[in-house]
């Protein structure tokens, strides 16, 4: 298992390299530059700025410089906030995004599995139909619709929860963003869990377990749940990517100081080094989390476990 993880990590390095290269050149071949948006900037000053940030060098040299600095852990200076560097900006925003994303993923994963299991065990009951109707809505409605609607209802209409702001991650402030972010994941996992539970309940080996005389709860907990988890684990990869996308919107709507919002602002300001830095962070996270999901999958299913 350790070998397998190591091998996957070895593959991850070139993958990351490809992504960095792709993102770097995509951004640089664009017409226009980061300083076009500064009003009344005279050409000489612009030239100076370009020089200061190495943007006047040939593209390949810039690329080489970037990689070299990256290898030394330096993500470079921000082009829009000229007194800050990218690493600082990311270090500020990351804890916010991580807390938001992690809480939402935990809620989505466990909440979704619980709902799915209950719905499957009470198949075709009122509980099942209610849960599945909500799940269908959750899958279908995008976060940028649910989030304002939640704010409208719980924030404005009922007045229970604050409308926006982070306030150092105070509980009341993170409820709405977390729920809005978790909802699509929760709904997706509910649907998948229910489907895989039903499939697993119909398997031949479950019949064998019943024929052994095991009580129903033992049949479910030992022979049904584990295979039912597997499609959920393989859904985690896309779910993580989805949640990261969602967090960009959620942070914008609720005005949370995370890296998602920084990314959007960076895109609007053409802050190349910030965008690139955040892409690297996200890509690394996604690769690591996918690796984790694969390892869990291998743990759950001995048939795909590498020897």
């Amino acid at each position, binding site marked *: 298992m350790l070998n397998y993880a190591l091998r996957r990590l070895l593959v991850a390095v070139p993958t990351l390299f490809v992504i960095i290269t792709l993102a770097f050149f995509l951004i640089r071949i664009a017409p226009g530059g980061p300083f076009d948006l500064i009003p009344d900037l005279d050409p000489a000053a612009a030239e100076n700025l370009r020089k200061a940030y190495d943007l006047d060098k040939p593209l390949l040299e810039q690329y080489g410089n970037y990689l070299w600095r990256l290898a030394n852990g330096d993500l470079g200076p921000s082009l829009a906030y000229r007194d800050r560097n990218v690493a600082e900006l990311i270090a500020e925003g990351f804890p916010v995004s991580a807390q938001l994303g992690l809480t939402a993923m935990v809620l989505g994963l466990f909440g979704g599995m619980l709902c799915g299991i209950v719905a499957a065990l009470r198949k075709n009951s009122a509980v099942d139909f209610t849960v599945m109707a909500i799940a269908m809505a959750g899958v279908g409605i995008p976060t940028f619709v649910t989030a304002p609607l939640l704010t409208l209802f719980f924030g404005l209409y009922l007045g229970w929860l604050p409308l926006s702001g982070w306030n150092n991650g105070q509980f009341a402030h993170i409820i709405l963003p977390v729920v809005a972010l978790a909802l699509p994941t929760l709904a997706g996992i509910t649907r998948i869990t229910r489907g895989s539970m039903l499939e697993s309940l119909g398997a031949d*080996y479950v019949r*064998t377990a019943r*024929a052994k005389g095991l*009580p129903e709860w033992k049949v479910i907990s*030992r*022979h049904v749940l584990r295979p039912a988890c597997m499609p959920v684990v393989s859904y985690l990869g896309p779910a993580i990517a989805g949640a990261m996308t969602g967090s960009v919107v959620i942070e914008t709507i609720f005005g949370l100081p995370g890296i998602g919002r920084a990314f959007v602002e960076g895109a609007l300001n053409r802050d190349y080094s910030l965008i690139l830095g955040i892409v690297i962070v996200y890509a690394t996270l996604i690769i690591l989390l996918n690796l984790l999901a694969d390892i869990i999958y291998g743990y759950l299913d001995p048939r795909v476990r590498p020897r």
Partner: protein
Amino acid sequence: MSTPLLACEDLHVRFETHAGEVHAVKGVDFEVHPGDCIGIVGESGSGKTQTAMALMGLLADNAAASGSVRFREEEILNAPAGQLNRIRGRRVSMIFQDPMASLTPFMRIGAQLCEVLHQHSDMNRDEAKARALEVLEIVQIPEPRRRFGMYPHELSGGQRQRVMIAQALLCEPDLLIADEPTTALDLTIQAQILDFLRSLKKRTTIVIITHDLGVVAGLCDTVLVMQEGRVVERGATETIFNASEHPYTRALLAALPRPKRVQPPEGPSIGTTAPGKSLLRVDDLRVHFPTRVQDRLRSRTVPLKAVDGVSFSVAEGETVGIVGESGCGKSTLARAILQLIGSTGGRIVWQGEDLSGLSRKAMNERRRDLGVVFQDPLSSLNPRMTIGNIIAEPLRRFHPELDREDRDAAVLNALRDVGLDREHRDRYPHEFSGGQCQRVSIARAMILKPRLLICDEPVSSLDASTRKQTIGLLKDLQKKHGVSIIFISHDLSVVRIVCDRVLVMYLGHFVEIADRDILFDSPAHPYTQALISAIPVSDLKAQRQQERIILTGEPPSPTAPPSGCVFRTRCPVATDICSEREPEFRTLENGARVACHHA
């Protein structure tokens, strides 16, 4: 008479489906007394499996059972799970058909065995493990301690079925119900498991559910024959086999092969004409597939030797049978001859030219003389095309000059040849039964009047009665058109009816080549002998007198074949020389050719 162990009265099972109610079991009565061994026999859809499931409360959610089932006077039909669980696994155990699907794939064998003991006894961990290992010994699993910690997918099919049996025997049940226990297994493994079940008769009462009368013949004292949800005949096994009254039972019996020294039922074999000149010659053909083996951080590539140096020839008008168990390379051989798979070495000489050296285009031209019929009837036909278009396809390819009317006429002719009607022409494959689909496949293969027809397990997925008709059809077509046939099958009884000459294949090699009668009457190779002794026959006396050769173990992997003779690891007569030298083919006095140091 003693009180019955299990009494089933007027049992009905109904299924609620989208298409309405299906009445699967329609009033079944029977009693099982201690020490009995009862066989319940019927074709698929006869309700035999649903009967067994109803007994144990294992029916699907959409099924309802009514009537009465008493176990030692206690009513258990539709009993609450708590009551059933005192009986299930402890006093009545079950063995299911497909051991791969019926064992939980992600639990170790040991854990699956021990949980039965923990449930039904107060054994502690060590006691349970000791008992589980003891039972694994009883079911003759090699290295039980090692297997104890393995997962089902790491065992072979036969071993998995032994684990199923061990699981059933753990609590020394009063009654053992086995649902098709050997159907998913290869012939020699099937013989091993049947032999073991026979030895179990002394220990426990057994009910066997099967479609195969041959299984019943060697094992059971009493037989129930089921058809369409009803028991149509019951009696002692001797009576059923020797003096059955019901036409359905007789039809089932008729589908079984006859014992030795009786002429095959349908008169003389197909190619009674003297063998003509050679049509196809295969010389030292090898097909190796590179397979990757993961080994620490690196992966190595090792050849999987699916076909490893086989030579034979087919004469004009001849029918050659190739038999072997699954994985022996017989289907790969067929595809290699057709050049659907590239060969690694050797020659395939077709009418004087080597097919393996031809360009794609030139090879495609040769295909007009080569027909093929595959195993799975439905997946052999393009679901998006009508039957008429499917059959006409080769005509369009090789006779583009034909106009629509000529082509239609040819298709209608072909349909008639295989016993289908003209209105079938505009229908689609999914509207047909398996047997009909196979007729369409045959019609397509025969429409260009090929000189050689290769049939890969053409009847294996068909019911007994359909199988017989399809074989008859092939024989008629051969008589009419004089085509040569290579007939590939794992089923010796079918090969015996169809073929002039039989080639026995094991692990990518031929081990014996002989004329049919010689092969079946006096098999020379130990493997052939074992295969033939495992064929179930309809004559009960013959069946019981027949000397059985039970092979031990299972075929080794084709990625690591044994040195010397490939069969030596399972051979009852193997000696030192077998591991040192690969046996050459020798011709015996009766004309059979055999590759064995001891034959």
